[in-house]
């Protein structure tokens, strides 16, 4: 049968299977290959809260979605066009999101009576015809195939069957005309010590590819060309790793050592993991007994002159909030990273959400303002972390960096920055009594930044005491005077306000005025951008602004907002940025809020936008 090849702009595929089926790995390989091929990509891992729920259960389904394209893209895609379902449960969970007319590739061998029942199917959907009208279904006996492929290798059946995911990957590589070498190389490195495993996997991969090539059932291949990305060296990067690299880069640039104090929590733990692997950079990681000790240790390390960082997720932020107040009143440089997840309480720990913004703004006792920056894409986490560090050190303040589960685990091609081009980082370190001072004034501020001197223990002549009680303006001594307290309260707010001078002019995607402005922050920015671009293509007067700094807000934002008839704020929460914007600018902004533990869908945001566009 002749095979035809269609060229597409983009494709969205989703791998889904049991936790034990290696779907994250499969997705990761597809992503790396797409990156090497030169596509723009965006990924969305989606795994269960259980380590490994019972095989075949709905709760145990793990998935990985990737959008790859020859054009610039901003999201992992709303709904996949191709679904790989390694078992009935995976089909059950993910079918509802597959587009009509989409392609389903299933491992027919996993559709046993037991698995079907476990997944809640009364009849076998591969046989009862229920799928045939709406989807193109490829039912492949993958178990059988890999067993064939590994024949003669003398491996236990269990091991052989574990290569099924590579077989499925091989089919997709054929479908999208991808090279196998990157994956083969990766397998060789990964299983360097177990060459027979590498071999089995390679066989499965090739078998899948060849199956696509030769089997009668597949008729069409798709070609997705290289995207035209800015020139440079690229790597694929996820948000957590990018965040960790951003911290390290800032410290190196500031000529400081990194101190990381924290406690593991999903989805932030990978930042700790990355940090703890960088001993050669002198990075010190302290896995503390809890989040409170984690942040407390960073406060101590900051006092003693390290660039101190902690990362956590919402429940951890709650625990750290008392100590954050201490960091604010002692005016020490500190970076606190919240990789947001679904709340409240333990909530949906492995899912994404943007619902900790107001906690970051207000979640402390007293008037305790601090700057807040949010990363927009996985790769942007690097720059946001770097920027947060720069501000913390320049202004002598703790800074909040908000990312989220989607950014943290999602990935995209990332143009590796050149270190020289990163902005310089100033610190307030001093090593002697400033000229003309008789005794050290630990709260004597820099006029431009309101930063106070950073006098670290071991410097002679600058001995001083700080703490959580209100301090006298200038001297920093404990002070209960009413007017001083008022003044210090105002100064602490003013200091945060001053960070506005660091904020680049706001970038507007689209015209500077129009009918609708979509105003986003953080992980919703990709969806907002996609939606905007499509609306613009359809001829609507829509523009997009993504906020990087949320506290303070950019000084040009007010004027920008006024140029639009309506402002629409999409957030994966019940309306948080919108409260800040409405209070600040008294504009009747409206929200688009869907709290499903997943990135917002561009298509639905577009619908919502059209409501306001009339």
């Amino acid at each position, binding site marked *: 049968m002749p095979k035809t090849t269609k060229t597409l702009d983009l494709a969205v595929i989703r791998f889904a299977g049991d936790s034990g089926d290696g779907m994250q790995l499969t997705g990761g390989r597809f992503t790396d290959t797409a990156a090497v091929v030169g596509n723009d990509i965006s990924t969305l891992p989606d795994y269960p809260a259980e380590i490994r729920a019972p095989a075949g259960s709905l709760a145990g389904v793990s998935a990985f979605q990737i959008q790859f394209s020859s054009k610039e893209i901003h999201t992992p895609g709303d709904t996949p066009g191709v679904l790989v379902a390694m078992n009935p449960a995976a089909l059950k969970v993910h079918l509802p999101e597959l587009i009509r007319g989409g392609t389903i590739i299933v491992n027919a061998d996993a559709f046993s009576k037991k698995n079907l029942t476990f997944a809640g199917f009364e009849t076998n959907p591969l046989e009862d015809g229920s799928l045939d009208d709406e989807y193109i279904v490829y039912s492949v006996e993958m178990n059988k195939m890999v067993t064939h492929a590994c024949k003669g290798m003398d491996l236990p059946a269990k091991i052989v069957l574990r290569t099924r995911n590579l077989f499925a990957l091989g089919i997709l590589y054929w479908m999208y005309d991808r090279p196998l070498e990157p994956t083969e190389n990766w397998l060789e490195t990964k299983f360097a010590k177990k060459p027979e495993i590498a071999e089995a996997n390679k066989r499965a991969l090739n078998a899948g590819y060849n199956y696509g090539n030769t089997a009668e059932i597949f008729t069409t291949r798709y070609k997705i060309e290289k995207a035209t990305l800015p020139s440079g060296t690229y*790597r694929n990067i996820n948000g957590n790793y990018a965040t960790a690299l951003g911290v390290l880069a800032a410290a190196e640039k500031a000529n400081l050592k990194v101190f990381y104090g924290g406690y593991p929590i999903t989805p932030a733990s990978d930042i700790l993991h990355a940090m703890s692997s960088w001993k050669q*950079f*002198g990075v*010190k990681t302290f896995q503390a007994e809890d989040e409170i000790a984690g942040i407390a240790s960073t406060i101590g*390390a900051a*006092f*003693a002159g390290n660039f101190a960082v902690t990362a956590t997720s919402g429940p951890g932020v709650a625990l750290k909030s008392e100590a954050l107040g201490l960091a604010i009143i002692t005016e020490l440089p500190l970076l606190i990273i919240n990789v947001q997840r679904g709340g409240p309480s333990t909530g949906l720990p492995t899912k994404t959400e943007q619902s900790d913004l107001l906690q970051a703004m207000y979640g402390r006792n007293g008037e305790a303002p601090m700057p807040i920056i949010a990363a927009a894409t996985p790769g942007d986490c690097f720059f946001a972390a770097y920027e947060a560090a720069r501000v913390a050190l320049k202004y002598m303040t703790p800074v909040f960096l908000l990312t989220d589960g989607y950014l943290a685990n999602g990935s995209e091609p990332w143009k590796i920055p050149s270190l020289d081009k990163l902005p310089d980082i100033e610190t307030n370190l001093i090593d002697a009594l400033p000229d003309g001072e008789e005794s050290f004034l630990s709260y004597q501020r820099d006029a431009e930044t309101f930063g106070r001197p950073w006098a670290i223990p071991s410097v002679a002549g600058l001995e001083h005491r700080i703490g959580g009680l209100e301090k006298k303006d200038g001297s920093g001594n404990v002070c209960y005077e009413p007017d001083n307290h008022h003044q210090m309260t105002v100064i602490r707010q003013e200091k945060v306000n001053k960070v506005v001078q660091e904020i680049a002019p706001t970038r507007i995607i689209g015209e500077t005025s129009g009918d609708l402005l979509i105003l986003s922050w953080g992980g919703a920015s990709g969806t907002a951008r996609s939606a905007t671009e499509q609306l613009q293509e359809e001829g609507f007067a829509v523009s997009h602004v993504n906020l990087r700094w949320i506290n303070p807000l950019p000084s040009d934002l007010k004027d920008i907002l006024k140029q639009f008839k309506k402002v629409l704020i999409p957030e994966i929460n019940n309306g948080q940025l919108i409260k800040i914007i409405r209070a600040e600018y008294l504009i009747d902004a409206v929200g688009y809020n869907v709290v499903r533990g997943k990135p917002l869908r561009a298509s639905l945001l577009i619908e919502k936008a059209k409501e306001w566009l009339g």
Partner: protein
Amino acid sequence: MTEKIEFAPLTKKDFVSDQAVRWCPGCGDYAILAQTQKNMPTFGRKKEDFVFVSGIGCSSRFPYYMNTYGFHSIHGRALPIASGVKLANPDLSVWVVTGDGDALSIGGNHFLHTLRRNMDLNILLFNNRIYGLTKGQYSPTSEVGKITKASPFGSLDYPLNPPAVALGSQATFVARTIDRWQSHLASMMERAYHHSGGSFIEVYQNCLIFNDNAFESYTGADKLENVIELKHGEPMVFAKGTKGIKLDGFTPKVVSMDEFSLDDLLVHDETNLDLANIISNWTSHPILPEPIGVIYAINKPTYNEQVDKQIETTIDNIGPGDLEKLLNSGDTWVVE
């Protein structure tokens, strides 16, 4: 880092800050502060290398009065803050001043973990068996039945025994002393200073406003009858040599030296954990004298040392980090 460095010798005055001391007149904290200010110069170390970290409580105001680097932090968190200080700069001599509430109530978890890690900090716990700063509620070291504002019918909580908690947490140095035993206090601080690892000193401290005379029997006229000074390698005698301690199985008995000789007595061995456990259970014993001195002291690599060593070893093995290289590691590709 306990080696001496050449510089003009310091005096007590060098360690007195310009802040007015604000404890109740007569508070036991004064004596401890004075002794500390007197001791510090004897260590022959520059004063800028000392850091005093505290939590919240009357006792925790301590750092303000020391003319060194100081951090008066939040309730219960002095130990992890001090750990951060020490890890960031292991050359500092880091002292923690805390109270029975601060260290053992809200801060109990950090106490446990800081000690188990053998973080090289010197911890002075001012135990007045009461919450002073919040005006007199019972604390985790208050005796059962204590009448306070929060327990008008008497408290029900069994008290913690700080040395026992420390030993249960794998502490490598556990000692006890008393605010008014000035030279003993000084010698305990000196031992702590020279101990490499987490040094825990419980200091009985009188709060004359809310728990006056809690330690009267150890500081009053009869004190020598009621207190035993532990000395490594020496038999356990007290009451001016008239009484001693003998073990019967694991059970200590007070014996009269009229009837027994020094050779019959239990000999203190501060390196023996089992003995240390036994001694720590004498606390507030109805019959046995209160043990003060070094209950337990052993050597074990400190956490902070190990952190530095791990970094050094890694650099020895793979060279110092190269950020450019790290950024460019993994699968990369070039877009022209």
